[in-house]
């Protein structure tokens, strides 16, 4: 068994023989699996891209009209107007306010989990986040419609005369995106090298000083990405919001009033219209706009993410 040294130059190294070895099959197989996602997305983009532009080509609606503030697709042919401004602004509004509510909580929670929580606490918070994600949006929706709306209307009647409102939507959303932001922010925080923490603490700074002056700056990019991706999730949420914002197709002016979003616009009318109606095409245009918003946000997130990595 003991193999005595081979005389120099003897039994030469194996060379690549078959093509099979040269074309690395596992690599290609796994690549295909990975690419699949891209194909699905491409398909989705094409599908929605085509449907979403029919309004202009087949429906003959001028592109500029989507920036009009009046949404009146039900009027007799001729007088219809397909102004999507209320939906676009509504979506942005709901998602921004949701982020403003959720971001501090989520990031605080992320800091807690990464810097402060003892193991037992972490063993509670992390599953909690996952359960949050697991709760169906319908459930959030009905909680919102049956509980939150009433609470707002009866306790803050001045601000929320109807309960159904922009704020209600944002509040429901903020709970739904809380786990998203938290987990991404948490990942961003724990990737900050431990040496920086110890470096600061060894200088006699308090933990909070370390967090404020070292940790947060170092993780800034990651945290911003987290918030952006959270907003993204918010923009795409349909059922829950639709049940609490009142769906009033007006340009939002106050968080106390009912407004409408792209997603609820789609859910409200999609089922009742047929796909040769310009009305229906307009709904697909909403879908397309939503997708374009997602695209820009993902771009943004990746930009910031990359700059962060550069630091």
């Amino acid at each position, binding site marked *: 068994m003991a193999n005595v040294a081979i005389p120099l130059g003897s039994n030469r190294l194996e060379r690549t023989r078959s093509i099979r070895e040269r074309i690395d099959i596992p690599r290609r197989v796994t690549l295909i699996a990975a690419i699949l996602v891209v194909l699905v997305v491409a398909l989705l983009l094409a599908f929605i891209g085509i449907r979403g532009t029919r309004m202009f080509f087949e429906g003959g609606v001028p592109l500029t009209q989507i920036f009009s503030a009046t949404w009146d697709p039900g009027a007799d042919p001729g007088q219809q107007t397909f102004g999507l401004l209320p939906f676009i602004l509504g979506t942005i509004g709901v998602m921004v306010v949701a982020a403003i509510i959720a971001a501090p909580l989520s990031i605080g929670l992320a800091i807690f989990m990464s810097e402060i929580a003892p193991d037992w606490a972490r063993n509670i918070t992390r599953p909690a986040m996952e359960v949050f994600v697991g709760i169906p949006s319908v459930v959030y929706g*009905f909680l919102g419609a049956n509980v939150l709306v009433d609470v707002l209307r009866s306790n803050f009647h001045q601000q929320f005369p109807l309960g159904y409102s922009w704020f209600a939507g944002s509040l429901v959303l903020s709970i739904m995106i809380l786990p998203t932001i938290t987990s991404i922010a948490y990942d961003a925080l724990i990737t900050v090298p431990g040496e920086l923490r110890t470096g600061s603490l060894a200088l006699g700074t308090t933990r*909070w000083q370390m967090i404020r002056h070292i940790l947060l700056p170092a993780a800034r990019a990651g945290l911003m990405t987290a918030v952006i991706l959270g907003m993204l999730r918010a923009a795409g949420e349909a059922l829950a919001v639709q049940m609490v914002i009142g769906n009033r197709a007006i340009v939002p002016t106050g968080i106390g009033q009912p407004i409408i979003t792209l997603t609820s616009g789609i859910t409200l009318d999609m089922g009742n219209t047929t796909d040769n109606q310009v009305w229906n095409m307009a709904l697909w245009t909403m879908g397309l706009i939503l997708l374009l918003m997602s695209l820009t946000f993902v771009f943004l997130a990746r930009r910031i993410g990359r700059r962060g990595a550069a630091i």
Partner: protein
Amino acid sequence: MNRTLNADRIATGVLWAIAVFVVAILLAIILNFVLKSLGTLNLSFLFGDPSDSAVGGIGPLFFNSIYLLVVTLLITVPLGTLGGIYMAEYAHEGRVTNAIRFSQELISSVPSIVVGLFGLALFVRATGGYTALAGALALAVFNLPLMSRLAEQAIRAVPDDERAASLALGATKWQTITRVVLPIAIPGIVTGIILTAGRIFGEAAALIFTAGSSTPTHFDYGYFSLTDPRSPWSPFHTATTMSVYIWHINSESILPDSIRIAVANTASAVLIITVLVFNLGARGLGRALQKRVTGA
């Protein structure tokens, strides 16, 4: 000195408060449903047939939820794992990798209603109606990127010296992946799978237009067929899930108000509890597998 110490104490307090607050919200939500469903939540509700006059049960819907979950995972786990392997072991930074990552992030932000309509146009036609398969495909659209992300993370978490050790012994890359890396990564992957199950369970918007939104009658589990839509085991049977059912009865059912609310609350409770169970189960299982893998 003291100022900074106080600042530290206050900040710590605030952060604790936030954590407690958030967990409290969750508990409140869970309790709300559990308490409201105390009267109705029992086995006959869980496994019984729905009724259009009384509380009845959610048996077929529960079955459908599980069924869809399984079918979806059958599609996404193999593909996702393979994709994850590529991203973790083969991918170099570059256009392809970027495109993949980009797509993954984009999909998870596409409104599910849009995916539902996408499914209505593609899968429903392809599978001949509102079918479990159509629903599963729609769900797969969401779940696939999530799955490969999870697999990738689990695989990346495997320490490099395990790979180095295997490769240094003259094992090929693929051997290293299948014989060393995957076995070590599996606990992580399994945990991930079960955690995503929660999302699949909760999805409604995408299913209303794909798997259907009708209240099924009695399921004849004894009748097994993979092609006949009448068999609950067939991927071609219409599969209204629990979350869709919750949506349905709350919006269009003509159940008496009291019953409607009771059913909705109880079904929600069941959903949330299931997700909870999945979660704890996932952790337990993960730990157990971890033990078996490391053997120590």
